[in-house]
């Protein structure tokens, strides 16, 4: 008679006073690895945290660790987002901070962070080096945590997990922000540790998975249900509504030249992040910006959004004006709606859903003024459009990640901007939400809006994309028109 590895019985859990898991019963056998998928907000993250013993719950969760194995008898939960701290133990960062050079070091380096982790867990440092190599992370050893992009932070989390090899490894959104090559290498590494006896529970809706994953499950009505494969099931709440009228207005361009970069270079000390970039974006064009992690995409976008201090020393034109000719960053931002993983990460934790969306009118992180009537009506309309009415007075951070993302997407388009910058906008959304959002982007763009879109998943792009720029190691590799979609 075999005991299951993981045995859950009568598990009940609430998230913000709403029951998400109801009398959940589940068993996971020795040697099995699962993917748990399905719609956002069904309780996947809560379940994972309960299994890892990170939140209180009612019911029983038993794990039968292999006493003979030399793998640590523990459950490691890798969060989809995590908050690092500065050297003084606080996490009061802002998303532009990593572009500014400051001699006073605020955060640990990747190397110091890993040394500390290895010491805490009793791990040998020579075992982490191949993992760093495989994920293309070795070059970041001397980088400070504040300098990393979201994809790079994800890699740091994964490196730690792969190094530790706990008997049960739960990873929430393992592929978020990773480029295609890193995703492939991650799968190889996951298969290797599974071979050594690590059992995996991945929470995601991705389809390219490690081969050790044998089973799929979804949470439906508070129960965990084993399914044949992850369905792209039509979600019942996000039926397509008509977009509000104020978003159908074509943008008024003050200049046909949205972005023009002439031999742009960005350096931090001796490290060159962008090399001789030449790029032009004209009004109404729809661009796809691609490149592996660390190729300089976020830095390039920070130049466009007025966030990079080194803009002033480069030949850069935004909306027809030379950068540094007396404009303020707020003059630039008023033309732009932007979302990026880092922006989401550092967003105001004290803002409600409604305030978060409304702050998009002023490009502020948090709302600091009264909205005039017409603007506040527009916020209401967009809240309704995104199906967020019942959440509108809740704190943004109290919502599941997917919903938070929808709120910030609403914030991005609220002022019907001339230029939309969507840097991995659909992270954390389920497949249906992603499809709907990309349809919305297509619709907005058909009215003449300009688009710069970053996405690591070829299958999850809006159809309106017509041009592509590819970065590699800080250089432009390809600029092309994608004919098929014209």
């Amino acid at each position: 008679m075999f005991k299951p590895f993981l045995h859950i019985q009568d598990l009940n859990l609430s998230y913000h006073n709403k029951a998400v898991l109801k009398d959940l019963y589940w068993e996971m056998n020795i040697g099995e690895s699962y993917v748990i998928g399905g719609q956002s907000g069904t309780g996947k993250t809560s379940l994972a945290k309960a299994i890892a013993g990170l939140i209180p719950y009612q019911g029983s969760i038993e794990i039968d660790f292999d006493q003979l194995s030399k793998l640590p008898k523990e459950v490691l939960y890798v969060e989809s987002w995590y908050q690092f701290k500065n050297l003084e133990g606080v996490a009061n960062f802002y998303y532009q901070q990593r572009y500014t050079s400051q001699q006073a070091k605020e955060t640990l380096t990747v190397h110091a962070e890993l040394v500390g982790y290895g010491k805490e867990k009793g791990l040998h440092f020579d075992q982490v080096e191949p993992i760093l190599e495989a994920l293309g992370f070795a070059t970041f050893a001397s980088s400070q945590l504040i300098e990393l992009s979201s994809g790079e932070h994800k890699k740091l989390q994964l490196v730690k997990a792969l190094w530790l090899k706990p008997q049960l490894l739960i990873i929430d959104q393992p592929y978020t922000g990773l480029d295609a090559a890193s995703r492939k290498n991650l799968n190889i590494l996951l298969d290797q540790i599974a071979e050594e006896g690590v059992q995996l529970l991945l929470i995601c809706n991705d389809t390219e998975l490690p081969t050790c994953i044998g089973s799929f499950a979804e949470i439906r009505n508070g129960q965990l249900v084993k399914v044949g494969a992850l369905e792209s099931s039509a979600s019942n709440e996000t039926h397509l509504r008509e977009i509000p009228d104020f978003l159908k207005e074509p943008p008024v361009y003050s200049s046909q030249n949205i972005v023009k970069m002439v031999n742009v270079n960005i350096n931090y000390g001796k490290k060159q992040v962008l090399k001789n970039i030449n790029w032009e974006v004209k009004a109404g064009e729809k661009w796809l910006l691609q490149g592996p992690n660390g190729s300089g995409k976020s830095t390039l976008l920070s130049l466009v959004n007025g966030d990079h201090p080194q803009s002033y020393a480069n030949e850069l034109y935004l909306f027809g004006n030379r950068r540094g000719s007396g404009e303020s960053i707020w003059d630039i931002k008023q033309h732009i709606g932007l979302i990026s993983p880092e922006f989401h990460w550092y967003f105001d934790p004290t803002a409600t859903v409604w305030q978060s969306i409304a702050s998009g009118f002023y490009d502020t992180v948090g709302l600091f003024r009264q909205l005039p009537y017409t603007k506040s009506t527009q916020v209401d309309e967009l809240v309704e459009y995104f199906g967020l009415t019942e959440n509108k007075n809740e704190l943004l951070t109290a919502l599941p990640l997917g919903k938070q993302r929808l709120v910030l997407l609403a914030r991005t388009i609220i002022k019907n901007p001339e230029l939309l910058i969507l840097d991995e906008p659909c992270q954390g959304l389920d497949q249906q939400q992603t499809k709907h959002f990309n349809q919305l982007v297509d619709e907005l763009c058909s009215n003449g809006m300009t688009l710069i879109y970053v996405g690591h998943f070829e299958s999850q792009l809006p159809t309106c994309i017509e041009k592509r720029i590819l970065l590699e190691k800080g250089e432009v590799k390809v600029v092309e028109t994608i004919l098929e979609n014209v």
Partner: protein
Amino acid sequence: MANYFNTLPLREKLNQLGVCDFMDSSEFLDGVSALKGKKLVIVGCGAQGLNQGLNLRDSGLDVSYTLRKEAIEGKRDSWKNATENNFTVGTYEELIPNADVVINLTPDKQHTAVVNAIMPLMKEGATLLYSHGFNIVEEGMQIRKDLTVIMVAPKCPGSEVRAEYVRGFGVPTLIAVHPENDPQGKGLAQAKAYCAGTGGHRAGVLKSSFVAEVKSDLMGEQTILCGLLQTGSILSFDKMVEKGIDAGYASKLVQYGVEVITEALKQGGITAMMDRLSNVAKIKAFEISEELKDIMRPLFQKHQDDIMSGEFSRIMMEDWANGDKNLLAWRAETGETAFEKTPAGDVKIGEQEYFDNYTLMVAFVRAGVELAFETMVQAGIKPESAYYESLHETPLIANTIARKKLFEMNRVISDTAEYGCYLFDQACKPLLGDFMKKVDTDLVGKNFNEGKDGAVDNRQLIDVNEAIRSHQVEQIGATLRKAMTAMKAIKTA
């Protein structure tokens, strides 16, 4: 150089002490236009220098940095901060002669040397900007008559000045024009524009004078802000350890308690802070804070008197001349206290527990804020200025203690504040000797409500509430806080 304030006739002393105007946001509709196209040259590129400069440039202004030759040649941190963010950097000789506004963001102690070096290089009719008036008021620095002298003082550390700006907000700021140096009458317009360039105009701006700023700033920082928080923290910790409370717990309660308690102060004044206590605890905290006020009043008054007469500056400058002998000895002593050396324990303390188990600190804060405020107002400082330099700044300083205890607080604050803090602490600890003998763990370390039935006399509670709520610091505070919208909640470990 003679103390500037002491050269003034009484009428003019009172006149300058009384400059105090909480500015309406409509006064900033012109944004940065008064400085548009002008050359702004910042002296010094530390935390305030760099972050203010980044904000000003992002507001569309022309900013560069001037550093001493040695800092440039030695490629010091200030040089790296400026050049790596693509600012122009040059020596005084290279940049000052073309500057329309020279911004002096060096430490107080260097002001005389810096100003003596740059003033002869400044062009006719230019503007010199300070962020603290000590050099002008206490040291009596005389500025060339053709130059305009203004002050813009963001009331937050440099990193916050930047963080709030890029969020689209700002930090509360104080501005002033020196009446001896406003030959063209452009000082106020330029100060307002500079303030808008750093984002300060969105978070509440107080128009003050060099005199009022210095006299109130010195008073606030030495008494309630740094001095009393230091004394109260050390005495509380020692008392808990003496009474057998776990040292790790005591250390954590003291390190983070003052931040949690003053967060309530920030949101809703003394009233909100006291209301976080149970009725019995509130009455007790009221009674002991009244007692504390009586004990400490003469000390607060002495500090205010010495600040007004220039005696404080005189002895501090003596210490500067003496190689900071006293300052360094006191700093070392602070670093050696048991509180400083005991790390915060790995125990969970709930938010309410910080109030219930640390009633003593609530009493210290009430006594200190009210005393500092009352003493300043009695000395001729306007209530608005007194509010800024007492209640308003207390949570900011408490935050530095939460980060890394008293060492961090004393590292972050200015050198004048650090000196004054120690001076107060040295005198206050013995003064509270008898009082502390009576204090037991119900006031610090354990829940005050434990073993009490919670019943109070209605009449007594009504009287206590009335006394708390009707204090002038509460009335002025309610008005000012309304104007400073969207204050960010400080997070706690």
